């Protein structure tokens, strides 16, 4: 990552758009496709302007078939292209799951490397936008359980661009979940207060041109001694705000990549702090928090001074009117922090 490059202020959508633009200019094998991504530029505008710039055979709308979108992407990857399909909402990825899980994720293995699926599936995920149960889900744990696929989730425009570039260059299939709640600005969990735009946040400064953030490397958002907080996406900011408000000297780790996980950074932190809180928006049971919890207790058992806390969404669909009761917001996080401090 070249921090010496000149910087510009971008929100997360713009950063993603910029990453696609930079990469499409560098590599003519990159194609972008998905429902409404072409002429219109995507329902969240992440692909705006790309069709005009790179033409209709490199940026195009698709039929409404997630199975088809992933399936043709696998075939294009086998040909030698690097498709970057968009799934309009993570909630709609299930019809394409077989092509992702049984095909993209398995192709290198089953062909002993003869064929690969170097595809990056972008999809907005997470709630907090009154999208109801089919525009709010966080299905990352369905992917982290599948061998052969990498799961990446950025928490800032800066990381979104650098990680997306790395994902596109990666020769394995990557699922790239974009926390749509923070497309426009980091969300601190206080839904009744105005949101700060990315232009006023340090991580809204994005280098021009090409840079990569390696997959599998976490970001230490803040160093601290009192406890370790593991989070990704939107929840990084919510946790950060709660801990700042409470004045807790926590070490906050933004995982960035769930698989492969940066176990070293996690381990070092917990050996230092002895306490661990995991935060995610997905439903609790079998969420990625369970894996994090299991790993931490396996590797840091004798350092742990208190039970690991999982702060998560509830085991219900994401409701419409009671969305803030579902969301793992400041109160839920705050209680867990208090428990850890007391332990």
């Amino acid at each position, binding site marked *: 990552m070249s921090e010496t490059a000149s910087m510009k202020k971008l929100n997360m959508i713009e950063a993603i758009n910029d990453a696609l633009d930079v990469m499409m200019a560098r590599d003519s094998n990159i194609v972008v496709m998905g*429902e*409404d991504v*072409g*002429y*219109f530029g995507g*329902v969240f505008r992440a692909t705006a302007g790309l069709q005009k710039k790179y033409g*209709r*055979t490199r940026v*195009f*709308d*698709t*039929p*409404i*078939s*997630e*199975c*088809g979108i992933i399936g043709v992407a696998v075939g294009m990857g086998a040909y030698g292209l690097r498709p970057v399909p968009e799934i309009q909402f993570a*909630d*709609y990825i*299930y*019809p394409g799951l077989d092509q992702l899980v049984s095909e993209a994720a398995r192709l290198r293995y089953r062909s002993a490397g003869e064929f690969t699926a170097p595809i990056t599936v972008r999809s907005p995920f997470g709630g907090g936008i*009154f*999208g*109801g*149960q*089919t*525009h709010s889900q966080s299905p990352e744990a369905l992917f982290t359980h599948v061998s052969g696929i990498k799961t990446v989730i950025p928490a800032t425009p800066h990381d979104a661009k650098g990680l997306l570039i790395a994902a596109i260059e990666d020769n394995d299939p990557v699922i790239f979940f974009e926390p749509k709640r923070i497309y426009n600005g980091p969300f601190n969990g206080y839904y009744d207060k105005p949101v700060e735009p990315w232009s006023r946040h340090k991580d809204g400064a994005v280098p021009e041109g090409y840079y990569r953030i390696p997959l599998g490397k976490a970001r230490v958002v803040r160093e601290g001694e009192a406890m370790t907080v593991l989070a990704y996406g939107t929840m990084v900011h919510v946790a950060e705000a709660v801990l700042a408000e409470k004045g807790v000297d926590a070490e906050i780790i933004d995982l960035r990549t769930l698989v492969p996980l940066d176990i070293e950074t996690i381990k070092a932190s917990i050996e230092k702090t002895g306490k661990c809180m995991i935060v995610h928006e997905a439903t*609790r*049971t079998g969420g990625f928090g369970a894996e994090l919890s299991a790993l931490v207790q396996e590797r840091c058992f004798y350092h742990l001074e208190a039970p690991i806390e999982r702060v998560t969404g*509830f*085991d*219900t*669909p994401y*409701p*419409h*009117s*009671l969305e803030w*009761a*579902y969301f793992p*917001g400041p*109160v*839920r996080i*705050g*209680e867990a922090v208090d428990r850890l401090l007391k332990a």
Partner: protein
Amino acid sequence: MNEASRSNLPPLQLHVPEPKFRPGDAVDYSHLVIPAAGAQARPDESCGASETHPLCLDLVRVLGEDHRAVGPWDPKLDPESLRRMLRLMALTRAFDDRMYRGQRQGKTSFYMKCTGEEATSIAPAMALASDDMVFPSYRQQGILIARGYPMVDMINQIYSNKADKLKGRQLPIMYSAREASFFSISGNLATQYPQAVGWAMASAIKGDTRIAAAWLGEGSTAEGDFHSAMTFAAVYNAPVVFNVVNNQWAISSFSGFAGAERTTFAARAIGYGIAGLRVDGNDPLAVYAATRWAANRARANGGPTLIEHFTYRAEGHSTSDDPGQYRSVQERTEWPLGDPIARLAAHLEALGEWTPEAHAAMDLELAEQVKAAAKAAEANGVLGHGLHHPFRTLFEDVFEELPWHLKEQSEQAIRERRIKWPEWKEEDS
């Protein structure tokens, strides 16, 4: 073929569909072949499926240029029924207008209109038995209105308020109304199609007489669920009526991205060897007649029919988009198949059964009716203003009974609420 000869070959090319008109373009519909009303044969309801196949590439039309009903598909409805049909379509439009404004005023998060497509739900609802089970997409609010479902309940759902029968759980307009034989709407496109087949199969297994009908948009025909539904319905001869509402747009993508450049959507029926009809979706009489034909056929164990309703989405996809960004505004005004309400009104006028004055009075009355319902619903709250279902309801209905982990989480939610609003009492909400 010889490798060496390759160099003489032209390069392959990817064809990417592009609609005829984009923002700013002048619209010219002269390429559209619109057959004359009344010119389409009407095979017997018990015919072999292949007898309907020419109709899959044609367009069943009843209302002519002169606003008269003509030809074998004329359902010969009495003026009473026609006026009821007109009123229901107008009521649907009035409802849409008010709810759209409600969303713009911040009373809810989302809304979707069916403007211009009212015939595709009102006419089928009238042609089906009232207890035939319907599996709609999100654009068939007209069915609930036609079946007399309380409008206040519809608006309670849209406002996600404390009287919402769905307990505020679903995005606005994702109704469920078992009492109206109206299946719970899913946010996931096309999933209702195989479900409708399953319901129809169950009805047949039980020797019942009720049939099922399903709706989806032309864009959604691309989903695998569409194919599963057609295959199962064909294999088991399920008593189901499939409606494809071809309003030519799927958010910003025109119907070419679902395959419309190649053939009609009704033609899918030919591929499965089932009956198919293609109708002028803005001609309520044609829609009614086609539905009745298909329903009678299904009820007589004649099997499934696929009906394509050729219509036009006159407004945006939803409150979340602006169609001016991707299509010519002239498309709507120039649309040669007109507006279903205007066409039916003109027909009634031609019959001497309606006047512009009566129409204006009806519109006023319906607007008042909707306004009153909206006011009544608003008394139960609008989205985000505290009048929602009790917090514990968040955990109900995940399962029939609350397992221990949801009980714990329910207590957690209540505790969080107390922490945030110490003055809050559980009874309040």
